[in-house]
């Protein structure tokens, strides 16, 4: 037995040596096990392998929550050559700890500075670019087209039109908005949009970067608008005990007509029995016409850890995932939007509308919990939920957020 073990060890060692001699290993950690995203990633890997037969690609796919925990260890202990992660403030702790390496050269050599211009600010920190995005998706208002048709409503373009439409819905016993705030982040989507429409991208960005207080008159104005939305439009009852999936039920049943959500939710509507004719997408209405349109578009990206062993091929992969043809195919599979402005999009109507929307945007927010640091995001989203349940607590909530802000930044 001992002899067998010895030979086995020798064989393994030999094959490992042989492996490194003939093909270079490229280890990629990916963060989504859902069938669509997994297939999109695996197809891309196959294509990459076909183009680079000399690279031996090793893939580790984990589920999203597990990846979020694992990355904190593997970046130091056993770094892959490439890992998926999120831009904005989510990458900040790793950048600050020196665990990612800058990839400005990849952007330079491949012309990404032009093709991925919209996302460049989000991928940058300390004047350097840290990763390459492969996909993003739009946020906005998903609504029941059949209810709008019954009530003879058009897509509201402005705040007043939205409030008027809400009035008509309420007269007919329809709750205007559904939402499920149990896990908090959905409320942040509503906040982001009202703030982006009230104050614009720069103010929003300054807020999440800790440069503006929550009791600043501009942010208070955002909350005033939100209060108006809650009073004159209104959200479903009991939203604090529902997840975002639970909140689809009143939407599917026709009790509620609109849902501020990301494009990933379309699958949920279809699974709840709604057809493509019954649902439609519209941008969040304008509040202040002087404010340039900015949208919410969280991106997914790839990064190279500082401890990567095969940096050269890792950069090849990064250049590959942002190529127009790769992004086109990948995003068709996963039903999201390519970031490369030269890429094509699928003919899905939500994707088409999202593409038009994001192309017209002057700024792209990454979502409150990616733009703001973790501790701030948690306190902020709890504050949003508290405010939504009882709008009279507005100033208390904002003052508390100021205290948290003073401590976090």
């Amino acid at each position: 037995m001992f002899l067998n073990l010895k030979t086995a060890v020798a064989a393994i060692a030999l094959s490992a040596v042989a492996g490194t001699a003939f093909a270079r290993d490229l280890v990629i950690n990916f963060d989504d096990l859902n069938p669509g995203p997994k297939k999109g990633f695996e197809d891309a890997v196959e294509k990459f392998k076909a183009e680079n037969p000399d690279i031996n690609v090793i893939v580790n796919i984990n589920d999203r929550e597990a990846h979020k925990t694992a990355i904190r260890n593997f970046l130091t202990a056993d770094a892959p050559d490439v890992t998926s992660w999120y831009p904005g403030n989510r990458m900040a702790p790793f950048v600050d700890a020196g665990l990612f390496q800058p990839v400005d050269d990849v952007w330079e050599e491949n012309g990404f500075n032009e093709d991925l211009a919209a996302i460049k600010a989000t991928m940058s920190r300390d004047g350097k670019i840290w990763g390459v995005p492969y996909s993003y998706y739009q946020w906005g208002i998903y609504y029941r087209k059949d209810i709008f048709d019954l009530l003879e409503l058009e897509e509201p373009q402005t705040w007043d039109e939205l409030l008027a439409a809400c009035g008509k819905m309420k007269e007919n016993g329809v709750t205007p908005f559904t939402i499920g705030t149990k896990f908090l982040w959905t409320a942040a989507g509503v906040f982001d949009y009202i703030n982006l429409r009230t104050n614009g991208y720069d103010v929003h960005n300054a807020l999440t970067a800790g440069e503006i207080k929550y009791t600043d008159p501009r942010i208070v104005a955002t909350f005033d608008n939100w209060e108006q939305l809650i009073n004159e439009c209104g959200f479903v009852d009991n939203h604090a005990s529902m997840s975002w999936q639970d909140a689809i039920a009143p939407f599917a049943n026709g009790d509620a007509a609109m849902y501020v959500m990301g494009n990933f939710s379309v699958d949920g509507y279809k699974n709840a029995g709604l057809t493509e004719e019954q649902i439609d997408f519209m941008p969040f209405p304008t509040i202040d016409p002087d404010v340039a349109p900015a949208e919410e578009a969280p991106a997914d990206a790839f990064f190279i850890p500082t401890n990567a062993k095969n940096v050269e091929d890792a950069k090849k992969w990064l250049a590959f995932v942002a190529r127009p043809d790769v992004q086109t195919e990948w995003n068709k599979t996963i039903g999201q939007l390519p970031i490369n402005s030269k890429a094509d999009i699928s003919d899905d109507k939500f994707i088409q509308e999202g593409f038009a929307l994001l192309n017209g945007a002057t700024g792209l927010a990454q979502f409150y919990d990616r733009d703001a640091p973790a501790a701030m995001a948690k306190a902020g989203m709890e504050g949003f939920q508290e405010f939504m349940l009882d709008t009279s607590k507005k100033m208390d909530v904002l003052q508390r957020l100021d205290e948290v802000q003073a401590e976090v930044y």
Partner: protein
Amino acid sequence: MADAVVTDTSTPTEPGWFRRNKLAIAPWIFLIPALIFFAIYVVIPIFESLWLSLYEWNGLYDAEGNSTAVWVGFQNYVKLWDDPNFWTSLRNNIAWLILYMLAVPAGLFIALFLNQTVTGMRFYKSMFFFPFVISQVVVGLIFGWFYNPDFGVVGTVWKAIFCEETTNILGNTTFRCERPVPDILSSEQWATYGIIAAGLWPQIAYCMILYLTGLNNVAADQIEAARLDGAKGWKMLWYVVVPQLKPATFIAVVVTVIGALRSFDMIAIMTQGGPFGSTNVLSHYMFEVAISEYGERYGYGSSVATVLFGIMLFFISYFLWRMYQDEKGGR
């Protein structure tokens, strides 16, 4: 070991050191494995987290494997003092401690009720014991559904009383309510009590089983004598039965206090500390600031853990002292 003993005895003149001290050493040899694991998994981490509470650390190491922690002294504790979430958690911990104590008398009465000989008693006993057997997570889920205003028992009953069924604009069935359905787990005032009620369910079962075994040891002759002296009902219970159940009561109180202080699973399952942090307790708050997705403040989390440890230490020391006193009393 046998080898060691043989070599020790090979010097014939006088017995070896090991031989002479055998009685003193043997217990320690048996204790060593337990002590090692206790040290690795309990004692050392306690000191590590005490130490960590003096740092500010997001849990990351840099590329060379050096910790990125920064020494901040007692600043974490200063922050804690000004943190409204901490005080909410502490208040909730106290609510848990007080209300959880209901499990002790409730368990006693169920035990008294079940302590009779009726056909099928074993079945009833096991039914009452059942909630303790199933996982706390499952209990949390069941109660979460129970309280759900849309499809839970609470919601359904409420709808039957206060709501009328109508059709909405699309002709689908919906409910119009005179009063909105109570949303217990999303209410700042009621959510904690809702979770405590769920937690009491298995805890009562635990206390019940402790008392049931205790009741087996109640001396029948004393009951007999008390009965002859005319003791009945409450007096019999309070002056004759309960004093004999003192050991069971002691254990029931200990497990209930510890259970209340370490309540975590139910909160994590039912509300995640929400709405807006109002159902947090120290153990869950510690998890939230240190390990959860929006936390990653390990130093701060450790300072919460230290406070919780202090509270636990107070109770545990008291219990140990009591036990020591009892044993000295020669029972």
